[in-house]
């Protein structure tokens, strides 16, 4: 067993991980562990932009941005976090610019800004230009710029090191006369994909920045690698997951494929039409129409299709119409996404509307953290030395529905905070001793899979999981669909015990990797479904047809899902609640 010692270990090398690494690498001995290579992460797929109230092109301020974020998240947003994010957004953008990010520019040479869904002037009066962007590859440029700066600061990467376990110890502490168990973290166990060996990384601070869990769905904009590993590891180690019922479906995925066409398309003037050629968003959001937040647009689209106004042979998609825009304008602002339409669907966006349908996009929920990116083991107890940032975390700045561009902002603001706080903690703290036999559980997990002859195929189970999630835990949900999903997942979990990998080797055993990832997917699907079942109201990205109204009286709370084998009625997921933080905005009806 190889043991490496670092002050700070960062799990994941996407936007949040590398943003944290830049801060922590300059302050403490830092290692970044990633199951990919740094620039392969899904941050690179983000297109439209990153909002900040720079007011470069029109009047704007960070309070409006906070309001939009809170309202966009249907008031489930922790407002202290939203304030931090909107306020620090400005520096986050300027930091990136100073790191070299090639933002598009105004005629005066300042960072240009454009409109984006849900971002408005003066508390919802009209759309505002707030999104800073680099063509339609803002995420790509952020990822590249962060990696470039990691190179500049000599950050140590361990590429293709797959983190499989978090090493924790429990100790009794007494706070205010109450004795409870405090979780402490000692390090992580990783699987070196190249050699098939396990390594232990002992660290004072550990930052999870491992991204989302989009692959529980079939139609998703997410990368194959987004399998909820970080969330799964934390969950298995007793850390709760917050707000997992809220999953964002991005309105404009290429129909059937799920590949994303940026909201920037609508920001630049593209509109949605149904089979009758009608601009149906005028009915659903009369004020901001196609630029309504994603949950509303996605639901409207799904509703159009459900009511028989879908296009195509199966009437199962709607159209994104860019044909009234100047080709030159499209080329200048949206070059990549028009290429996607051409490459993957053979549609020429200059002259033909593009078939689109909502695609699973973003997990609003995740590992609960406070505004210092510290992970919580319950509603208010911090796990010392454990941090999370990015999609894996839930600060909660997105509440029940994230606004477009706020994810790139989230990773930059809270990635930076995680890096700074983790390094500062590491400089004052001591190592926690690695528990005895740290590899036992991981080895057992891998050995079972390698030696199993049960004959169940990873791909088959995963496909069935994705099918049921797509059908039953999508834009519209009911108790019935959710219960069915839960029982299907239980069945799949049973079959997963007999899963067989064909590759028995050590070197680059990606067959084994997929099997392990499937385990996390099953866990997360279960948590998401159980949490959705628990929330008997409709809010943001979570729409219960049996409870179509928002219910502030009973559900103005975050959900906290704990692993608890005794909670048999919800497949081993125990749900609790956590209060929402309010500072200045009281809940109102959410209309656009």
């Amino acid at each position, binding site marked *: 067993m*190889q043991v*490496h010692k670092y002050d700070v270990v960062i799990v994941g090398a996407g936007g949040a991980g590398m943003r944290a690494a830049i801060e922590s690498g300059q302050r403490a001995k830092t290692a970044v562990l990633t199951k990919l290579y740094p620039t392969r992460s899904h941050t690179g797929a983000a297109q439209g932009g990153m909002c900040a109230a720079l007011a470069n092109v029109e009047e704007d301020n960070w309070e409006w941005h906070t309001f939009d974020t809170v309202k966009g998240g249907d008031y489930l947003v922790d407002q202290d976090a939203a304030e931090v994010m909107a306020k620090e957004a400005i520096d986050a953008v300027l930091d990136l610019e100073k790191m070299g990010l090639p933002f598009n520019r105004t005629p005066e040479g300042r960072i240009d800004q454009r409109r984006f869904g849900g971002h408005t002037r003066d508390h919802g009066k009209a759309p505002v230009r707030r999104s800073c962007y680099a063509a339609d590859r803002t995420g790509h440029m952020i990822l590249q710029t962060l990696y470039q700066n990691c190179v500049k600061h000599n950050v*140590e*990467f*361990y*590429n*293709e*090191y797959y983190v499989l376990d978090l090493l924790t110890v429990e100790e009794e502490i007494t706070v205010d006369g109450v004795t409870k168990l405090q979780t402490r973290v000692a390090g992580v166990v990783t699987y*070196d994909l*190249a*050699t098939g*060996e396990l*390594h232990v990384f002992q660290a004072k601070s550990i930052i999870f920045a491992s991204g989302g869990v989009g692959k529980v769905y079939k139609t998703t904009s997410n990368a194959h690698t987004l399998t909820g590993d970080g969330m799964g590891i934390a969950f298995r180690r007793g850390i709760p997951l917050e707000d997992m019922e809220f999953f964002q479906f991005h309105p404009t995925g290429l129909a059937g494929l799920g590949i994303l066409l940026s909201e920037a398309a609508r920001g630049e003037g593209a509109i949605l039409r149904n089979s009758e050629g009608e601009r149906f968003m005028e009915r659903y959001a009369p004020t901001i129409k196609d630029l309504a937040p994603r949950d509303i647009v996605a639901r409207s689209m799904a509703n159009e299709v459900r009511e028989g106004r879908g296009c195509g042979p199966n009437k199962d998609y709607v159209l994104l119409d860019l044909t009234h825009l100047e080709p030159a304008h499209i080329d200048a602002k949206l070059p990549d996404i028009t290429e996607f339409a051409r490459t993957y669907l053979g549609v020429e966006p200059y002259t033909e509307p593009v078939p689109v349908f909502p695609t699973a996009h973003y997990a609003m929920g995740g590992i609960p953290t406070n505004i210092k990116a510290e992970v919580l083991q319950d509603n208010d107890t911090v796990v010392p030395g454990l941090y999370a940032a990015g999609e894996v975390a839930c600060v909660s700045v997105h509440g029940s529905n994230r606004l477009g561009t706020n994810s790139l902002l989230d990773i930059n603001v809270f990635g930076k905070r995680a890096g700074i706080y983790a390094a500062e903690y590491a400089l004052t703290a001591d190592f926690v001793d690695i528990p005895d036999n740290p590899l036992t559980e991981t080895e057992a997990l891998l050995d079972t899979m390698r030696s199993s002859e049960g004959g169940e195929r990873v791909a088959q189970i995963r496909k069935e999981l994705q099918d049921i999630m797509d059908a039953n835990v999508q834009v519209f949900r009911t108790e019935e669909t959710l219960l069915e999903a839960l029982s299907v997942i239980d069945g799949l979990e049973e079959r997963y015990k007999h899963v067989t990998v064909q590759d028995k080797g050590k*070197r680059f055993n990606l067959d084994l990797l997929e099997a392990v990832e499937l385990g996390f997917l099953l866990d997360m699907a279960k948590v998401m479904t159980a949490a959705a079942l628990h929330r008997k109201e409709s809010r943001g990205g979570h729409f219960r047809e049996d409870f179509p109204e928002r219910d502030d009286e009973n559900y103005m709370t975050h959900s906290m899902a704990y692993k608890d084998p005794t909670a048999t009625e919800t497949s081993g997921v125990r749900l609790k609640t956590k209060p929402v933080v309010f500072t200045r905005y009281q809940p109102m009806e959410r209309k656009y």
Partner: protein
Amino acid sequence: MANPVIESPRSGRVAPEYTRRGSSKGNFEMLAWLFMRVSGIILVVLIFVHLWTSLIDGEGIKGVDFGFVAGKWADPVWQIWDLVMLWLAMLHGTNGVRTIINDYAEKDSTRFWLKSVLYASTVVIIVLGTLVIFTFDPCPVIDGVAHVAPYCPAL
């Protein structure tokens, strides 16, 4: 069954074959690159005219003999012409072959020997050629027998 030993950690470790062998100071490669282009343009002119006179003009290849050479080199313009052509072509060619050796010789020792042979032959050829052009005698007397040609002074 080969059991590969993969060093760990692998990240950041570059296989030795790919580690660059020191960096070169100075502008040699740049100058060589530039020389190829400049000499190339000049050579196109020099060689095309050379080919015209040797292969097309007059009787073509059939017209080439000692007398043809002698007649040409009697004119200093042609002497200079051929001299420049010799030098540029040899250097251009040598540099070309040098890059090819650099590209394809797998071992340092092979590379060294091939280049040594190349440079030696280049020197020999350039020196030889230069000497021939400058010491050329259109009416040589060999073993007391004078070469007879219309342009030779009558004995």
